[in-house]
């Protein structure tokens, strides 16, 4: 069953990044569609930037999106920690940014959303990878 395969892939991906994280990318995908989908998609820029490749990338580096100066100058690389801080309160993390949204107040929701963002960041990457990107996240999948 594809769900099992996906969870196994996810489990191994997570293990190589942070051992023991019990995040659920599948649930994250559903949360993403419901809560983030109005502004974001993996493939296209909309009200918010596209998300393919975001995990492991420098903030504000998806081509064709008009980011705020605040996020452009933030010097953030998106990883579990920075995404968790961002999603809990974007304006507290990067004051003056344009994502004035709070839609992930539960730590478990954030972990699942981050697992989903990580799962869609394998392979093709249009944003600028950060130097500190974990090896597992750069592996390209066929």
């Amino acid at each position: 069953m594809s769900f099992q395969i996906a969870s196994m892939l996810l489990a191994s991906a997570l293990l190589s990044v942070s051992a023991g994280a019990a995040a659920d990318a599948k649930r994250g995908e559903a949360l993403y569609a419901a809560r983030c989908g109005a502004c974001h998609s993996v493939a296209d820029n909309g009200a918010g930037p596209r998300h393919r490749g975001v995990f492991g990338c420098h903030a504000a580096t998806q081509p064709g999106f008009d980011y705020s100066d605040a996020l452009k100058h933030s010097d953030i690389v998106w990883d579990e920690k920075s995404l968790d801080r961002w999603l809990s309160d974007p304006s507290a993390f990067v004051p003056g940014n344009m994502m004035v949204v709070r839609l992930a107040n539960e730590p478990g929701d954030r972990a699942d959303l981050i697992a989903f963002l990580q799962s869609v960041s394998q392979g093709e990457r249009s944003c600028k990878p950060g130097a500190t990107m974990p090896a597992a996240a750069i592996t390209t999948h066929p």
Partner: protein
Amino acid sequence: MTQASFPRLTAADSRRGFLKLGGVALSGTAVALLGGLPMRGFAASHSDAKASGDIAILNVALGLEHEGIAAYEIGAGSGLLSKPLLAVATLFKSHHEGHRTALIGAIEKMGGTPVQPKSMDDYKASEKLSISSIKTGDDVLRLAQRLELGAVNAYIGVMPSFADRNLAQVAGRLIADETMHWTALTQALGGSLPTPAFSFGA
């Protein structure tokens, strides 16, 4: 599962269906409600920076309304909807047009420039709407349901950020309309109502 769900609405049972339209009264009321947006407090009462933040949020909302109108228009023109569902889609589209008018008015009143809709071709080609994958009337409803839910959650997410509390009230009224749409669409699709409390936003 023990989730509650309404009986599925089909063209055949639409006369006793939950979705039966309330005649002209409903759309008339909707228009009246939207025409009465509280406009006091715009612009003058807060600094430019705060106003420009609010304008940016309203423009995101306006972009979603443009997109919703396009989706309902495409759905209504698809020939895939039964007559009663077509009437519902047309009504919901008119609500979104009311939202659009109200948002444009608010943005202009605050000195902002309302975002323009994309071209119909752009909407049809967008991966988000995924129009090419629509094959049945239910696909049309599912697209509308997904967009309504996205809008509800986006509005809930931005609500605490309005500098002008009157705008938070406007957002609340938009959310109520979109939630009403989502519920009706979910029912028309024979879907379940959410089990937990606080199933919208987060």
